């Protein structure tokens, strides 16, 4: 593989708050290859959405936010671009869909108006052409009778339909990268299944890479090729989807997987629990950030923060003891406890 489509190097996003400067994303590095679906998982407050929005520089840089590091899109550092040039990237090269499509659509304009507006901002087309393109886009995203739907207002559509409209809008300029920030979280499971199928289909047909942000490990297993697990503003584990689910290394990833109730297999009496809660960003632990909740933590973890190290292949993990834990577990598996 040559140059990756998107390469993030040591990205930091800081916010000025009443309680001082907070670093919501602290030293994130990962890359997205052409045409792949990368999952970013983590619980609320881990910085996954901030990472996504930082890629497009959506935060107010004048007063609240500042960035460090590099975000390279096909070799070009987005953090160094001028405002005007950044504008050309947004929607053209990289576009984004959000969790709640109703608050991203303008309630007083028809979806047709909003779609044609998007098209005409980025490309030179007459209103008529843009209108026809909008109908095509709606058809592509699976909206039935798009000729009629195009003149409706957002409130006339259901949640699933609105998300389809958002996807249509994001696809308007055939972006190379789509950032999907929890696009199915607000939807029912049967509708979620439809939208996930649509994203997979578009990924295959258009060869568009996707950064899929979610808190749901089930969704990750279903559609992603590679996964980044985040905790408190840092990447704690990165792996191919098979490796992550068959051989999770970080205690946080392990705990997370064991604490989800399963829909098949044996029903366990009790769920595994990760004790405690995520510390506040203003009160980040000194050593390993997960040490306060980790059952394997010792003095080393509390003193010194581990680096993201390569385990094998593309599997990276940020933990002092992952090798020991894996060994210990292998032994426990070999000797069944009676």
């Amino acid at each position: 593989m040559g140059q990756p489509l998107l390469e993030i190097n040591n990205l930091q996003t800081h916010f000025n708050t009443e309680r001082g400067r907070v670093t919501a994303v602290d030293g994130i590095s990962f890359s997205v290859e052409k045409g792949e679906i990368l999952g970013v998982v983590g619980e609320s407050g881990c910085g996954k959405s901030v990472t996504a929005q930082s890629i497009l520089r959506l935060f107010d840089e004048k007063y609240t936010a500042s960035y460090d590091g590099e975000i390279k899109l096909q070799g070009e550092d987005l953090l160094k671009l001028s405002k005007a040039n950044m504008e050309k990237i947004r929607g053209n090269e990289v576009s984004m869909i959000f969790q709640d499509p109703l608050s991203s659509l303008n309630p007083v304009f028809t979806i047709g108006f909003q779609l044609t507006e998007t098209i005409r901002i980025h490309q030179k087309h007459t209103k008529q052409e843009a209108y026809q393109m909008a109908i095509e886009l709606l058809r592509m995203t699976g909206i039935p009778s798009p000729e009629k739907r195009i003149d409706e207002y957002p409130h006339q559509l259901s949640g699933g339909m609105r998300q389809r409209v958002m996807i249509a809008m994001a696809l308007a300029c055939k972006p190379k990268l789509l950032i999907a920030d929890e696009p199915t979280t607000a939807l029912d499971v049967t509708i979620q299944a439809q939208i996930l199928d649509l994203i997979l289909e578009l990924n295959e047909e258009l060869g568009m890479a996707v950064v899929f942000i979610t808190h749901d490990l089930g969704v990750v297993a279903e559609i992603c090729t590679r996964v980044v697990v985040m905790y408190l503003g840092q990447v704690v584990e990165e792996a191919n989807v098979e490796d992550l689910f068959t051989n999770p290394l970080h205690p946080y990833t392990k705990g997370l997987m064991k604490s989800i109730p399963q829909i098949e297999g044996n029903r366990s009496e009790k769920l595994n629990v990760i004790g405690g809660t995520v510390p506040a960003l203003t009160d980040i632990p000194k050593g390993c950030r997960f040490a306060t909740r980790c059952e394997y933590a010792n003095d080393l973890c509390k003193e010194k923060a581990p680096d993201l190290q390569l385990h094998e292949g593309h599997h990276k993990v940020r933990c002092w003891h992952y090798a020991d834990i894996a060994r210990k577990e292998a032994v426990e598996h070999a000797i069944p406890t009676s």
Partner: protein
Amino acid sequence: MPYQQAEPILEVQGLKKYYSVKGMRREFKNQQVKAVDDVSFTLNKGETLGLVGESGCGKSTTGRAILRLIEPSAGKVLYNHEDILKKPAREFRKIQKDMQMVFQDPFSSLNPRIRIGESIKESLTIHSIGNRNEREEMVMDILGKVGLRPDHYFRFPHEFSGGQRQRIGLARALVANPSILILDEPVSGLDVSIQSQILNLLQDLQDEFKLSSLFISHDMSVVRHISDRVGVMYLGKLMEEADTDTLFSNPVHPYTKSLLSAVPIAKVGRKRERIVLKGEIPSPLNPPSGCIFHTRCPYAMDVCKQVVPEKIQIQDRHTVACHLYN
């Protein structure tokens, strides 16, 4: 084995909640939205009954109608063989002590200007349980049981995290020592690591207080984990009901099947036959004739469009409303 000495504690029979539609448009005149339409089920002592379905299926309305937070339009709710829907308000108060509810978002159900200890104590005051000192002690006691500290008594709701607030919600429901707990999406707003903490706590408390619970949720895997029996709802109707293991290993209703197949599984290499439903839930204002599911059902026959399917028992403790099994 909770169901071997199955003794009903709450029987819901033909529960209906219709809303009449008001508005300017003529086509809506005299129309009704059937939010809950002829739902019947039995909750046995010590059992957890899960109620699943997608948004708008009437699962929350069912929960609220049982407690008369929303006055039902028709039907019976038998608690210890007495119809509580017919009770005058004064008598119903007494029964309310035995039935408590936990909501999805405890933040919006807690008064932000009242210390949480006082909020929890309110239910004791209303039901005149104990004297002033005893009440305070009982609140401290329940705080300990839900995993909070006694000094939390004096704090305000905004000082707590989501998981802690749900613990407060549980404490408030349990302080008057109820026998039935209705939980409306109690873990939906929580992260998975917090969700598992609350689910485990809930199981402990159910054992300790010998609770019978109605667990309302849209999350199949959570319902599977916590429930002994499960009912599946769609557009105000109960489509299928069975013991949890039966329902999840051998679902018979086409809706249940597709619902289960749509749940993403956190495992790789599990290629499942996914039944993707076409379209979306129809408007409850203008529900389909016959079987309410026939517009999206892959197996729909002619009879489904005309005749409403009856609830049939296909096995011991397994009922389904579908023409395929007639």
